[in-house]
């Protein structure tokens, strides 16, 4: 029987507290991310040539910032820690599948649900800070009061879909890889692993985009954002270009 979730492998327990593979590999991922970040930022250079790690992280952070600017507007640094950490965590979790005996934490529904809960909490938190509590509540009855039940259900279901989508993709990829490995032990698993890497990055991007869109829609920023963002971007470009 294939063990589909690392949650089931408990390494240590003490009452309700237990240490399973999901938490252990999460710590591993966290260590790798923090170590990489520390290596990139321990000797930051202002002028080129930049170190390899600084170059990679600056490129990724720049992409995330541009993504935030496109969807959430000009307050980039406000959303960057949350959105960026979501991306780095999911991305690194899925990248490390190349390690032997490694089980991606994102292949655990508990992990993806935890991330979805974080998004579920972050959406009203950012929305309230942006448009106030009444503004946040107001969007539930727009355009009509009749929309309230449906919107409440949407809030819950989209959180669930966020969790299940990520879990399903990663878990299924692991299942497929295990199945293929059992049938064709040579060559084909390599291609499957490479495909799994690509799927993992795509899922990280999808998760981040959906989380950004949820925050934007809850705070009403998504309705007016595109035009304003373009104006802001054009202003920035024009100010840079002189």
């Amino acid at each position, binding site marked *: 029987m294939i063990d589909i979730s690392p949650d089931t492998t408990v390494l240590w327990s003490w009452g309700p507290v237990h240490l399973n593979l999901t938490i252990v590999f999460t710590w591993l991922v966290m260590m790798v991310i923090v170590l990489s970040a520390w290596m990139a*930022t321990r000797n930051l250079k202002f002028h080129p040539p930049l170190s390899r790690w600084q170059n990679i992280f600056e490129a990724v952070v720049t992409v995330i910032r541009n993504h935030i600017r496109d969807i959430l507007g000009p307050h980039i640094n406000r959303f960057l820690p949350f959105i960026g*950490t979501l991306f780095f*965590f999911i991305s690194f979790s899925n990248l490390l599948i190349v390690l032997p005996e490694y089980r991606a934490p994102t292949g655990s529904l508990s992990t993806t649900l935890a*991330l979805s809960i974080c998004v579920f909490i972050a959406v009203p938190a950012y929305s309230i800070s942006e448009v106030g509590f009444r503004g946040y509540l107001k969007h539930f009855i727009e355009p009509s009061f009749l929309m309230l039940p449906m919107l409440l259900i949407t809030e819950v279901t989209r959180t669930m879909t966020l969790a299940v989508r990520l879990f399903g993709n990663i878990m299924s990829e692991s299942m497929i890889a295990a199945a293929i490995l059992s049938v064709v032990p040579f060559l084909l698993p390599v291609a499957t692993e490479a495909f799994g890497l690509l799927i993992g990055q795509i899922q990280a991007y999808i998760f981040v985009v959906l989380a950004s869109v949820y925050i934007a829609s809850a705070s009403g920023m998504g309705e007016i954002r595109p035009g304003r963002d373009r104006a802001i971007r054009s202003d920035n470009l024009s100010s840079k270009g002189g």
Partner: protein
Amino acid sequence: MTIDFFTIIAQIFNFVVLIMLLRHFLYGPIVRTMDAREHHITTELDEAELKNAEARQEAAELKRERQELEDRRGEFLSQAQADAEKWRNDLLVQARDEVEERRAGWQDAIEREKTGFLANLKQRAGEQIYEIAQRVLGDLANLDLERHIIDSFIYRLETMDDSGLDTVAARLARWQKMKPEEIEATVLEREAVISTAFEIDAETKGRIAAAVTKRLGQNVGLRFEETPELICGIELKTQGYKAAWSLQNYLETLEENLSLAFMSREAEPGQGTEAEPAPGKETEPRA
């Protein structure tokens, strides 16, 4: 597909911890660096644009100044050309004046030299002619030239048809009616001076006096004197009238001919020797 609530809580906690760690180790430093670099680039772009604008302005200013310099250079060149032309003209005028002045000086010197040469030539020619004529006449007739000169003078005085001489004779006739004491008072007015270049004896003086008295009347007073400048001649002067026979006239004619010869040589350089006047003309004595 199991859901472990402890794992969920633990993962939420882990995620929050990761956010804080990345905020400290990644986002803060890297965003500050990127923003600072972006700000630096923007500032540099602004400064570059500012410097570019300044450079354009300076270039325009330099272009304008260069144009002004070009214009001023043209003016200076025109002024310098005009000054040089004026200076050249002044120098030409000055040189021409100097040449003219030197030429005038040379001509004066030549004129003085020519005059001195002619005077000298006249003196020498007269002496030579006198000597030659005296020798020739002496050889031919065995007479002395002075006697022939005097004879010729007496002959001309007697035969000469001259209204001036008649006027003098008529004027002297007025004194025939005057008293002797009155005539005495006018002795200077009545005086006729016979000038000769040589000394003459008493007999000759008597012949001359007879001829003069015959021509001018009894009232004329005669006085003889020697004048070497006459050069072999004899001259009668009275009351503003003069009758003479001497080589002086010949020499004056010779002098005129020589002057003409000099002038023709000046006019035609290299051909002066062929412009000599024909001999034999104007050699007659004038009385």
